[in-house]
């Protein structure tokens, strides 16, 4: 589903990615852990063409990205319809209700009717346990609820890959649990290929089929959670 070859990326003189080679098979959940500044988030942003890279190539969900050139607008948009992303800070649209947040992309990008998009949106909100908050605005939701809406929002498109960037880091301990429940359920379904960047080794251990440890722009170690995370201890 995802193949990354010799990925290099620099920000000015600073090397962010220094030769990343990796593969993720369909239905797999990969957790990326490691110290801050190790290139985890940068790699994730390269995967859905939010960030360009200098050298190397990425094949993801049938799309090809190459280094040195920005993906064409059309490619980037088509790719993002099947590769979703969840952000640490949620980035919900504050002027839209929870339901409108979820229904926006189906309506605008997939050009579905409002009724159809909202019916599907309600189902998605129900799946993340927020059926009763459909008409709430983001400012009326707790952090955990916001992140669950954000997950539902990314799921509203016909996803094949879901990228999660520190989805629980901005949350209190109690709220983390409700978001973890949602992610756990998604991972168990095995319908989606997931790449999860996280600081929480417990989350990685529980959900991931494989773990990559990124350090200084490279994948320093990889393997099953048991091998890699136990060794890291």
């Amino acid at each position, binding site marked *: 589903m995802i193949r990354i070859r010799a990925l290099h990326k620099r920000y000015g003189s600073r090397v962010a990615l220094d030769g990343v080679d990796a593969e993720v098979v369909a239905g797999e959940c990969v957790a990326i852990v490691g110290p801050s500044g190790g290139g985890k988030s940068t790699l994730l942003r390269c995967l859905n063409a939010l960030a360009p890279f200098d050298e190397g190539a990425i094949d993801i969900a049938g799309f090809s990205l190459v280094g040195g050139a920005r993906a064409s607008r059309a490619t980037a948009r088509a790719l993002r319809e099947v590769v979703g*992303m969840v952000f640490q800070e949620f980035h919900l649209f504050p002027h839209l209700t929870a339901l409108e947040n979820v229904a926006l992309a189906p309506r605008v990008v997939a050009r579905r009717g409002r009724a159809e998009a909202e019916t599907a949106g309600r189902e998605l909100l129900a799946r993340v346990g927020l059926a009763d908050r459909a008409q709430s605005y983001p400012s009326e939701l707790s952090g955990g609820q916001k992140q669950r809406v954000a997950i539902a929002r990314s799921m509203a498109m016909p996803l094949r890959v879901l990228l999660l960037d520190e989805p629980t880091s901005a949350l209190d301990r109690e709220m983390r649990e409700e978001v973890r429940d949602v992610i756990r359920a998604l991972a168990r379904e095995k319908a989606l290929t997931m790449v999860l960047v996280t600081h929480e080794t417990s989350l990685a251990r529980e959900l991931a089929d494989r773990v990559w440890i990124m350090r200084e722009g490279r994948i320093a170690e990889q393997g099953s959670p048991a091998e890699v995370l136990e060794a890291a201890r």
Partner: protein
Amino acid sequence: MRLLASLWIACAAMATACGAWADGLSTVRERGELVWGGDLQGGEPYVFEDPKDPTKIVGFEVDIAAAIARELGLRGARFFQVQWSNLVPSLERGDMDVALNGLEDTPERRARLRLSRPYFIYHEVLAVRRETPYRSLDDLRGKRVGTLNQTYAFELLETRPVETVLYEGQEEPYFDLQQGRVDAVFLDHLIAERYGCPLAGIDCVATPVRGSYVVGLRREDATLAAAVDDAVGRMIASGELRRILEGWHLWDDAQRELASGVVSPQQDGGPAWPAASPSAATREPAYGAASLDRRQVALFLQGAGVTALLSLAAFAIAMPLGMLLAAARMGAGRIIQIVATAYVELLRGTPVLLQLYVLYYGLAPVLKLGPLTAATLGLGLNYAAYEAEVYRGALMAVPRGQAEAAAALGLGPWQTLRHVMLPQAMRTALPAVTNDFVSLLKDSSLVSVLTVVELTKRMTIAAVEIRSWLGPGLLCAALYFVMSFPLSRLSRRLEAKLENDPHPRLA
């Protein structure tokens, strides 16, 4: 210190004016010079800046004023510049001793001022485009006819079933006639022959409406008026007037009649013009007894309507164009960015008045816009530049993550702008936008230079007719206030709401 000094000067000026009211002739004699008022914009041959030496003014009225001063035994005459349509109020205010600038003898002026015996006979000329069928005022029912504000020609047109279009300068009406924006121009032959008739494609038709130029004086200056009358009489008798007019190539049969006393309007107290125009003779005085009555109030309301509609239409251009410019400055390619930035800086960096002139008069050979269209477009294009900056600031205040989240969902740049960025930016921008609309409402008064009669223009016209700026001024202010105050309040409430709620929703 400076304030004290200016106060003192103001007091001194008022004292001078009061002195003039007390007894014109003795004040003028004490001062040793005659202060006469006119408008340099009236141009050749009346009074204008010498092309060879713009610090000097010349014209046949300059010579007449000097001659009158000489006859009065004074050292000389000093010119006072005033906008022509305000000549009479300015005289009444005491800015000058006499008004001497193509002032026509009319019953209304006769009732309001003291008028000297005439020093010049004019006739009204109708200028038309050669290819049009119009050759008299009667042919022009319902058509647009241009003239100057506060002229006798204007009064006459007001009694006719034509649409009168008012100008402040005498070149513009003929320019618009050439451009087809008016169907005829009706003005004194002195103006027509210099500024209209020589133009390509323009035909001039002399009309039987005749009149005379006179010196205007305040009603209370009886002694000065008598002295000026005597002075003009002596100038006619001695041939001085003839020499002056010949010097300006203005001597003709009509002036010969004036000098020979055949036309001597002031002797029977009647108007200078023979009742050549029946409608002029039988009509009600257009503003002889004008007051702030129902008719005037209705005209003010109409002016306020023009102001409101004009402002709304201009803002309807400014908002979308401003959004487009803001988006172009932030997102589009390099060249579009430069073009958008240049547009914003150019329109913010030059006076809107200049832009209106360029749009209406400057571009006319290639783009013939009507006055209302040009006014709406001019204000709209100008305010778009300001709106663009407001929206740009508001767009920059939207957190970066919003655009990223939208992109990650597969929204294109325009969809992101339309569904995510603009709705949020507009909420931030709304108080500033409301304020800008209030500014636009007030700036719309500038379009009177394009002959649009909106609220402020209506006020200046009424003020001259009613002989008071107070009533019309207050009424005008009240109407602007009624339109702008609710908006200012709304803006303040929105601001307060924004402060309390980071994500306000529109009701």
